[in-house]
């Protein structure tokens, strides 16, 4: 039984060793690198198998190199680091806590300022004991730090003590606990959350998502890669409108893209909102982000069919898409738009069209130029009508990212705690001050538990101030 106890002890010591912490940190640093160099499985990346060829793909898959940050070795490191962190914290707690809440030690003049990090000043005063006591208690009171205390009082003798920043002794506990809270939030998100994308054309709607990673949620369809799946949302997202605006002076540089989204459940509209980059919307905890956009390969064309004999009254306005057949009953013909270009050989935007007789093309395809409305009239002299294009609008799909992140509130609290703790632990130190009055002489001493930078100068300044105050 004793053998078992000592084994447990030794294991505990191994897990609680600071050396293990250093090894873990170094390993984390090094093992974070491969995932930034080797391509990761991701919805927007080419498959690593295509990128690297079979040999390396096989090797990498065995080692989980293409899912580096979810791999057994990376997660394993995190787990060991967490255990080590908990063990170290538990081990050191009693000592740290004692230092933070320790009762101040009463000093005698003989031991005053003998510790190496303590600085000491002294001067003579004409004040009485009571005057010194009340002056110092008032002077040392500060909104930060503990209320000054009288440690020792006798006839013609008084000792006042105060301290600042004592919680910085255990601020590292706030940092480390917060780190574990962040891990907990990340685990909740990894288990119960999902993250996906959907490309939707204007007017279109979706109820399924392509998800990046598997969650515990049901409704997953396995894809051959094993990582890209489809997921049912439980509601439909309809894109009522989508617009891209470009900067006027910087062609091709988008200023904003905005989607007007409508949420439908069983065909019933539940919610409607516009989203843009940096400004998402939320429905039932699922957040929808504007991520990207792309050309749909289609355009909407506003045109007029103008009768050559009666140009004033014989104008017909039409709006068509590419590939759409527009019947012209009056001329026993129809036309179809084949393609739209932003620039036709330097003549500006244009649409290529084809006249049809029934189902069969008749004549050659012809161009309608937006900036040269009379071109069609002189180009196709035999046709009884001419076409004028007023507007060509390229159609886009909107790229949405849709995510459910149940761990977020947990890890945001963790981040907040970690920031608070980091600033407190690194930039604040535990400072102790003593003022000792005895027989017309004042001793002033201060100590700091670490970070002695600037403390010396600050204490000298305080001493000068106090000396001025208590000279009498």
């Amino acid at each position, binding site marked *: 039984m004793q053998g078992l106890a000592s084994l447990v002890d030794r294991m505990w010591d191994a897990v609680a060793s600071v050396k293990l912490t*250093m090894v873990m940190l170094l390993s984390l*640093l090094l093992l974070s690198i491969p995932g930034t160099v080797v391509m990761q499985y991701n919805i927007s990346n080419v498959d690593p198998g295509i990128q690297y060829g079979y040999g390396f793909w096989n090797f990498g898959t065995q080692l989980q190199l293409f899912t580096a940050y979810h791999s057994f070795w990376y997660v394993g490191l995190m787990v060991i680091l967490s255990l080590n962190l908990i063990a170290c914290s538990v081990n050191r707690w009693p000592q740290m806590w004692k230092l933070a809440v320790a009762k101040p030690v009463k000093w005698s003049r003989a031991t005053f300022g003998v510790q190496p990090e303590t600085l000491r000043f002294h001067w003579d005063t004409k004040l009485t004991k009571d005057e010194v006591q009340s002056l110092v208690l008032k002077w040392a009171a500060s909104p930060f730090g503990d209320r000054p205390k009288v440690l020792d009082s006798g006839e013609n003798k008084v000792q006042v003590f105060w301290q600042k920043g004592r919680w910085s002794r255990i601020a590292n506990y706030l940092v480390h606990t917060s780190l574990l809270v962040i891990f907990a939030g990340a685990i909740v998100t990894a288990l119960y959350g999902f993250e996906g994308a959907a490309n939707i054309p204007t007017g279109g709607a979706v109820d399924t998502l392509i998800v990046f990673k598997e969650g515990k949620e049901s409704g997953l369809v396995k894809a051959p890669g094993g990582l890209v799946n489809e997921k049912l949302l439980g509601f439909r997202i309809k894109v009522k409108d989508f617009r891209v605006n470009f900067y006027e002076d910087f*062609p091709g540089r988008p200023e904003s893209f905005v989607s007007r989204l409508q949420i439908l459940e069983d065909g019933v509209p539940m919610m409607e909102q516009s989203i843009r980059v940096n400004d998402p919307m939320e429905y039932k905890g699922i957040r929808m982000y504007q991520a990207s956009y792309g050309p749909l390969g289609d355009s909407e064309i506003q045109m007029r069919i103008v009768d050559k004999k009666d140009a004033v009254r014989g104008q017909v306005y039409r709006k068509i898409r590419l590939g759409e057949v527009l019947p012209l009953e009056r001329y026993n013909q129809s036309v179809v738009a084949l393609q739209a270009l932003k620039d036709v050989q330097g003549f500006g935007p244009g649409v290529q069209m084809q006249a049809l007789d029934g189902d069969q093309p008749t004549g050659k395809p012809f161009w309608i130029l937006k900036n040269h409305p009379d071109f069609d009239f002189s180009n196709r002299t035999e046709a009884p009508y001419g076409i004028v294009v007023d507007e060509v609008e390229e159609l886009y799909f909107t790229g949405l990212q849709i995510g459910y*992140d149940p761990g977020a509130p947990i890890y945001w609290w963790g981040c907040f705690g*970690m920031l608070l703790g980091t600033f407190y632990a690194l930039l604040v130190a535990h400072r102790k001050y003593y003022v000792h009055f005895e027989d017309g002489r004042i001793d002033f001493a201060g100590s700091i538990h670490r970070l002695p930078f600037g403390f010396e100068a600050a204490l000298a300044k305080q001493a000068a101030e106090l000396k001025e105050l208590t000279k009498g």
Partner: protein
Amino acid sequence: MENLFDSTLFALNTSAYLYLLACFLYIISISRADTLKIDKWAKRASWVVLVGFVLHSLGLLGRWWIGGISRPPWTNLYESLIAFAWGVVLIQIYVQRKWKLPLLGVFATPLVFILMGMSVMTPNKEIEPLIPALQSHWLKIHVLFGLVSYAGFTVAACLSFLYLMRRGVTLSRVGTGLALIMVLNLSMAGGYEVFQTGDFVMAKTTTKTLPSGKKVETKDTYREYEGGPVVTRMEKVPYAHIPFWWAFVSFLLSSVVFWRGRRKNGEESKESLSAEDATRLGHDLSPLMKGVFASGLVAFIALLGNVFWAKHLSPTLSLASNPYLVILLIMSFFLALVFYIIQARYGTFLKALPSASRIDEFSYKNILFAFPFQTLLLVTGAIWAYGAWGRSWGWDPKETWALITWFAYLIYLHGRLLMKWSGTLLSVVSIIGFVIMVFAFLGVNLVLSGLHSYGAA
């Protein structure tokens, strides 16, 4: 507006040249034989840095003014370089004055000049309006925290380097490291091509029209297929392979010669060096070491000449399309020059520095200041990403490298507070952390691809 824009360009370029001037004044400073003169010249250099800093600040403010309040001057590669350099100079000036350490500039100012030199050579200096992803208040906050922490780490690394020298590292050891750095830099300058074909190549130059209609000289790139990677057309620089291989072999040889003839660091444990100790440390280089290193340096000058006059050797080559290559070579040359001067005057240089434990303290204090801001950088980045991309942490290379930098300084802090590591080991960790940080800041954008790619040229 056009006038103001030109003035900001002028101010920023001038500040870069002033930093270069300061570099040379620092070189004069460390080549002086007595500590008083070292101090005097270093102070002159510091004044030049201060004037450069004023122009630098005006240039940045001018860009902010033109771009409007919502567009801070750190939204593309050009501006990031300038803003980062600005942060480094700010902290450098503060540290130099507060802790009376004018010699910090010997290492800090060349770094600043490299950043500013890179910015001068970046082709696109336009103030372009923000793309939607950057239209957020987090742009100001997140990047500002990044600048503060990265500048703090940079100055800390310079101080760590000073610390190592002050502790009496023998020059044969410094020389081994420096020769290896030169080999590494030459390899980067030469690229894959130099090892495949033996020829020294540079990016071919072409003229590109910016969205604003301005024409700039830049490297000639193309895509082999839709969605494929962007490839740069390369061209052989006539004759350049001769000095390249000469320098490469010389520095490789000199690293071996330095390492084989290294002296023991008997002085490492001493807090303050005596004048004799310091002089002895400076004279531990044998004529063979000096000779091989000098041979590399001569070859290097020849290579620089080749690169600078490439335009006259081939009409389709220019410096403008190879900014990083040029800066890399200048930086390496400068490092070697500083080493050459320091080896002659090592004793006086060391005597002009404060005690080693003071320098260690300064470096530690910089890291204590920078680390919480690095944490803020990560957290604000996560908040921004949560609002813009829909996830708080996505293991994008930029995010991951910022985390790796954070790990490096975590190791520093735990090594210091828990393990009570020696100042020498901590300084090495601080310098490694700095190298990682530089990669996180620039390397990721220039080498790896990812969501932060709008930071690239």
